[in-house]
């Protein structure tokens, strides 16, 4: 079904609790009934096919086969090697009976951990935006 809202932004709002999305409306008609009261938030009153468009950041897909390409920006692909080596050197340090070998492995683990942490921190801060060209800020609507 199609929407009957001409200006949904004036009536409908959303909020999140856990992994549940709430869609509520202030649209109403009958002032005598609390549930119908215009201005009170209550469940969305319309069935609208594909009526809600959600923009979200999602979890990268897991890799399941050796032919897969990791589902993250390719700038992070080589850092995945650092993460894997960091964990493998950590394992090696834990099971090695030779204390010198263990110390060297731990040192290598720390080195790769440092590279991984730096790459993820930089990547997180940059929030890579591949859109070029001039930008402008849309002024607030003070009506």
């Amino acid at each position, binding site marked *: 079904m199609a929407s009957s809202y001409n200006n949904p932004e004036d009536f409908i709002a959303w909020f999140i609790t856990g992994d549940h999305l709430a869609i509520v409306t202030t649209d109403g008609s009958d002032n005598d009934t609390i549930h119908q009261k215009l201005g009170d938030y209550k469940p969305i009153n319309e069935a609208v096919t594909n009526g809600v468009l959600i923009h979200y950041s*999602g979890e990268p897909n897991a890799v399941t086969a050796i032919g897969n390409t990791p589902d993250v920006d390719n700038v992070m692909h080589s850092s995945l090697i650092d*993460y894997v080596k960091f964990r493998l050197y950590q394992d090696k340090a834990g099971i090695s009976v030779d204390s010198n070998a263990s110390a060297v492995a731990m040192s290598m683990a720390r080195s790769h951990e440092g590279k991984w942490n730096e790459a993820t921190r930089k990547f997180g801060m940059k929030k890579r935006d591949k859109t070029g060209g001039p930008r402008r800020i849309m002024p607030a609507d003070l009506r």
Partner: protein
Amino acid sequence: MATTHRLTVKTIISRVRQAFPEAPENYIMNLINEALVELGKYNTKIEYAKLTTVADQQWYTLKEQVDGVTNSNIEVNKVYRVDFMDSSGDYVKIPRLLNNEIQTMDID
């Protein structure tokens, strides 16, 4: 056609095996997946999904109901914008309620 440089799991395994020739393939893949979960914290994957509303139903489980697919199993880390379709079929941004304390509550 230009191609970008990307590493496959196979390439990552071969690079890791330069230092750890005995490392099992499945274990390396598990570690790669651990790293991917950690990278998920940084808004690496921006997605869009559509959801069908039901009259008088307030709550929608993101994991199960988006894109008209039951048990779509998408993993939503953070919803940052929601649009609602207007009567002409355009999606219009709707506001987010910061205080979730509304008067009525529907538990469907």
